[in-house]
């Protein structure tokens, strides 16, 4: 299933809420957790990461990966946490509303 517009940022923030990660790990994590139901277009991940960085939600820092290589890690900022909370709430509201609509109509 393809991602609806604008949800990728939310998924990135949610993934990073568990701890700093590099790009590949973020895309893997999203796919694993959604049990492969959500197919993240790997190509669109990086522009999204830089967009989140521009908006000040995440902050890059260079670290060392499991196999001892230099890698760019992203971590959530305070602004990012806030944004995540707000977006999460919005999504839940929307999902509930749409669900109710589908159930009852």
């Amino acid at each position, binding site marked *: 299933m393809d991602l609806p517009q604008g949800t990728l940022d939310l998924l990135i923030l949610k993934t990073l809420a568990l701890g700093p990660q*590099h*790009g*590949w*790990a973020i*895309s*893997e994590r999203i796919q694993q957790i959604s049990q492969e139901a959500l197919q993240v*277009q*790997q*190509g*669109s991940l*990086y*522009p999204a990461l*830089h*967009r989140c*960085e*521009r908006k000040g939600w995440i902050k890059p820092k260079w670290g060392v*990966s499991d196999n001892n*290589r*230099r*890698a*760019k890690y992203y971590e959530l900022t305070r602004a990012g946490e806030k944004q995540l909370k707000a977006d999460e709430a919005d999504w839940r509201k929307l999902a509930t509303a749409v669900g109710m609509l589908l159930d009852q109509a």
Partner: protein
Amino acid sequence: MFTNLIFRLRSLFGRRTAEAELDEELAFHLEHETAKLTRAGASPDEARRRARLAIGGTSQIKEEVRDEWIWRWCRELSQDIRYSIRVLRQSPTFTAVAVLSLALGIGANTSIFSILNAVIMKPLPVRDPGQLAHLFHAGDDSYTNAIWEQLRDHQDIFSSALAYAPTDFDLADGGERRPAKGVYASGDYFHTLGVSALVGRVFTVNDDRRGGAPVAVLSYGFWQRSYGGDPHIAGRTIRLTGHPFEIVGVTPRSFFGLDIGNTFDVIVPLANEAFIDAERPMLDGRSNWWLTIIGRLKPGLSFPQAAARLAVLSPAIFRAAADTDMPPENLGEFAKQKIELTPAAGMSNLRDQFGGPLLVLMGITALVLLIACVNVANLLLARAGARQREIAIRMAVGAGRGRLIRQLLTESVVLSLAGAACGALLAQGAGPAIVRMISWQGQAPILDVSPDIRVLGFTAGAAMLTAILFGLAPAMKATRLATSESLKQSARALTERRGGFSLGRVLVVAQIALSLLLVVAAGLFAGTLRNLSHQHLGFDTEGVLLVEPDLRPAHYSPERTVFASDDLLARVRELPGVAAAARAAVTPMTGSWQWDVKVDKTDGSRKDVHAYFNPISPGYFETVRTPLVRGRDFGPADTKTSPHVAILNETAAREMFPGIDPVGKSYRDATMDRVRKEFTVEVVGVAGDAKYKSMRDAPPPTIYMPIPQNPMPMPLIGTYELRFAGSPSAVINGVKDVAHVVDPRISLEFHFLSAQIAAALIQERLVAMLATFFGLLALVLASAGLYGVVAYSASRRRGEMAIRLALGSTRGHVLQLMLRDLAVLVLIGLPLGLGASLACARLVRSMLFGLTPGDPLTLAGASGLLLLVAFLAGYLPARRAARLDPVVALREE
């Protein structure tokens, strides 16, 4: 421009790291994806392929990421600008002072630059001016018509070429002349320049024929002024110096001819000169060097190639064009001359006269701007102290130092752009006003000083450069202090440091040195003007009217011309209010007649003396009040056929007859025309030295001769000098009346000798006035800066002073304490400024007159003035500090 470069380098540099990091990030991703796929059982190649497929096109990803970066940069910039404007609006006094300082500095620079641009840099208003070549020979650019015709018919380097010469036409038929600026131009003039008519047509080679119907082309300005822009102008007739010409067209508005700073009214084909000067056409004179030649290089031909070809062609051209009676021994030398060419950037006396001075003024205004920068830097530094808390807080919440410096620099740029905008407005008015200052005989040079792309670029560049100059150091300093430290302390830590080396003190010293330099420059140039205008000229300029009659429209025979000009002089002498009158070929500062004469020495050998000549009528010395120190004046008995006589000035007497009385002695001269024949001239008198053609040069050896004995074959009328008392207009009207009686066709032109002398000093006056103005501006800026620094330090040290006063210090002592600090800075700045002045004044040595670059009086005066201004600027705020009430001040602490 320079700042722009730095910005670009920096962003480029930053960008390159970012690009590398992005590459690394994507490579890392691919590697992990490939590893995962390999673990799942794919072959390494297959895994790599699928990984690449999964991520999609990397270049497209990079493109999208880059878009994000640009967004981010723009957003931060607009944030910075909005923030800067908010911050600047919070302190309107600071902003106003800073913007005003910068506006004056940038405005001064833009004004001078826009003139420099118009005089030196703007290309000619013609098609493809880069391909036009200006022809020279031995540093001179005038040619005879014979050379022009030879060159035109035998050259193979120009696709077409033109010759032209400026002239004066008279629009009036007799009476006071109504001069029109004319140009004689060869038929190919417009074709070569690629200028076409706005109305009607321009003339062509077909119109440039002797005996052809005379046609004229008008300039746009003349067409507007004299014909109200009549759209049906083509076909109307204009009378030039008594001859009717058919107007065939009007040139476009942008076309002012080929002389920068000048324009023309009417252009007529070259061939017409033959009947306007019918008595002795310059077209036929093989010794009349009067034409300027311009050629358009054939496509693909370079200047060096063309020059090489011209060098080959030159001997034949000169040989064929040589004067028919040139002695054979001279011909070889004559034909050896080579025609050289340079890119035609516009012919301009204006450029020769004002190019150097404008560059000097440009340097002066650059220093004014530097002082303004120092002022603003000082203000920013003081503000940085006050803003220490704000900056510390912003750093504490995570703003990077680079980001903060960028923010502070943005503030500087906003300030300097505001200053540049106001400065450009100032320059809009100041530029044309300065151009009007260099007008001559009431006519300002025609210069287009409106801003073009170069002026705008210059102003923008100056703004950016100044922003970096005054903004960078304070911004670096403001962000350097450790955050926690300054949060704890009160704001005063930054500038409280006294003594020793600090940025603020260095700036004050620089300001003092720079303003001293500018005051010295003003003093030197003002002194030069004073020396030039108050020197002994050797004649009395006041109360002398100069009248130039033109008898050509009367078409007299030579004998009749001589009679009429003598008749006119006699009648003028009878006019009421005229004390004395005479005629002379040369009036001071207008031109020169010069050649060599031979003197027999006592040992039998001969020596050549290069002399300046002036054919004059009897009464000349009395009229201009040059003393006749020995011998007699010329009289009616000195005629064309009587023995040759001369009056020497003292310098000529000394050079030609050292140590003896020259009266009664003789020398040898030669006729210039036709056969060179020597004759003897007897010296009958010695006159006092008088300036001849230069206000700066000492009077040259000058030989006066009776007008009838001048070597020109045609009768010489010359200029009439009238010493008058009372109303000048009454005398002018009187001259008009008697000229009308002699012949109503005579046309007249009037000048005053004093105005002619003043005009010779236009350049010096301009430089002196502007240098003085900029010197004063520098003093005002510097004193504002000093005032600010002392006032600021006084407010910082309030507590200290209060304690001192409470403990029993006298107010005088506190005052002294405040001023001592300033005095140290002034005493460091003053010698630095003097040193800089000595070094810089040497560069303008050739522009000075009557004083040396290190003129002690000027240096002392400038130092004194600067000390006084510095003292006043420091005293006022220091006195206020000394008057504070210690009880009130300490309670505030």
